[in-house]
């Protein structure tokens, strides 16, 4: 119990930010029309590509060959996620461009 409390205390700001973000994610999405489900999924997919920052950090502090190689792969994969994700989403949404405003 005490360990859980200490853990909570140590990370309480992060935990708090996590909780607020969870609520925010739910609220933001909950009124989306079904036509947008796929582009939204794809856009969200691109956003979690933010993991690339972690890849850059490890790669930026890698010292041996193995971690250089792994880091390199990680950065490539993360970039794929980011760039591919945003571009594909943009292409999907381009399809809707002629869409008139609906009530």
């Amino acid at each position: 119990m005490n360990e859980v409390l200490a853990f909570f205390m140590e990370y309480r700001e992060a935990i708090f930010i996590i909780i607020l973000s969870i609520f925010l994610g739910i609220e933001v999405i909950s009124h989306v029309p079904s036509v947008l489900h796929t582009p939204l999924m794809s856009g969200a997919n691109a956003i979690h590509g933010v993991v690339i920052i972690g890849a850059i950090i490890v790669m930026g502090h890698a010292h041996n060959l193995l971690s250089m190689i792994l880091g390199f792969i990680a950065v490539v994969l993360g970039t794929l996620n980011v760039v591919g994700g945003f571009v594909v989403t943009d292409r999907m949404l381009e399809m809707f461009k002629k869409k008139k405003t609906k009530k």
Partner: protein
Amino acid sequence: METIITLTKEINFSPYISILELSYLVASVLFILGLKKLSHPDTARSGNLWAAAGMGMAILFTLLFHKTQAEDGTYQGIHNIPWIIAALLIGTVIGWMAAKNVKMTAMPQMVSLFNGMGGACAALISMMEFPGMQVRLAAEQAPHMLNGEALAILLGLMIGGVSFAGSMIAFGKLDERIGDVKSAAIRYINLSFLVLLLVFVVFIMFKAPVAGENWMIYTLAALALIYGITFVMPIGGADMPVVISLLNSFTGVAAAMGGFLYNNQAMLTGGILVGSSGTILTILMCKAMNRSLLNVIIGGFGGGGKSAGVGGDTTVKEISLSDAAVLLSYSQKVLVVPGYGLAVAQAQHLCHELENLLGSKGVEVRYGIHPVAGRMPGHMNVLLAEADVAYEKLLEMEDANNDMNNIDVVIVVGANDVVNPAAETDPSSPIAGMPVIRVWDAKNTIIMKRSMAKGYAAIENNLFFMPKTRMLFGDAKATMQKLIAEIKNL
């Protein structure tokens, strides 16, 4: 995290760190705004760009300003910058090309693939951070690895790994490289792997760290990959969009673990936002198909569903091309109901041509769009928009149903489940309760498909046997072409 906290405290004087943190804050806000805009039709596209701008900023500022405390106590910026930039370039070129060249209909696969890349990236980060952490903790003679850092590393690996492997399988299924595996046993295998995975994570955390003992992390990685495969394998190929959405939110959580590890605000918010909104999105997608998430995951749908007994009529009436042409030309109101077959046949452009042709003869042609027609939400809208069909011509399911009594001819182009009356009449049907387009209320129904084959839910469709229904067999594109020629010749 602990070290990072003290780190940022100690080098408070450096404005660079503050700028970096500020850029992360701005990036997070851009992610939030982007997501918000993405959920409204008019602003969706700019929302995507906002999020992308946030991402670009976060990456750039990380490269420029990130500092870590090295073992000798000094603060070091990002090394290996040429290599990193090379990796960024390679990823950008491949990602860009792939995304630009993929066919519209193959987009779900693409999303799955990119999602898998993100998961793999998260998993790799954990694999690289674990040995270092073990060395550090072993030096401190820590009795166990029960701390936030270890938890974040292990969960990041586990979730990222599952997401990676699962996404690859989902990709394979959508691309029709991997078939469906149906067996009751796999469900239990599945569950046991999940339990094993979780137990193993707890086991690692309670073990005293020994420097260089890396077999654990490799085993965990392997377990995660295997579980990812067994998790997605038994789920029907056509449920993949839902699965991808779920795996998408997994990757979000994995990214957030990285954010926790590095005390990085942008990764934390970005990841969690995607995690929670992805989960809600998954649930919304299931709702649109009138199913529960559990039902999708456990399967039992999308193959092997028992065929609802075909009552009464069992004869099918065909219609000749010339009859169809006459019927259409002399109607007042025609409704086109497209389905997955339209996508397969790529008949959307011909559909639009037919619409124009009939329109020039004074026939009012509109489209009835079922929210889950096709294989991804919005699939039909995307296809028809690609063929330049005006947005006003697209009726949502409810509007289409309300007007159905006034429709002279419905043309069902490669749709099946979304026009299956069993959804309303047969409570034991796997699609029971799903809203459908009630084409049988129209005066005539023409069905274009290649055979009497079943659709995604693998059940019979009574509609084909109804008195007002006529079949027009053949590939949708070919048939449509011939039909247009016939109408022109009238």
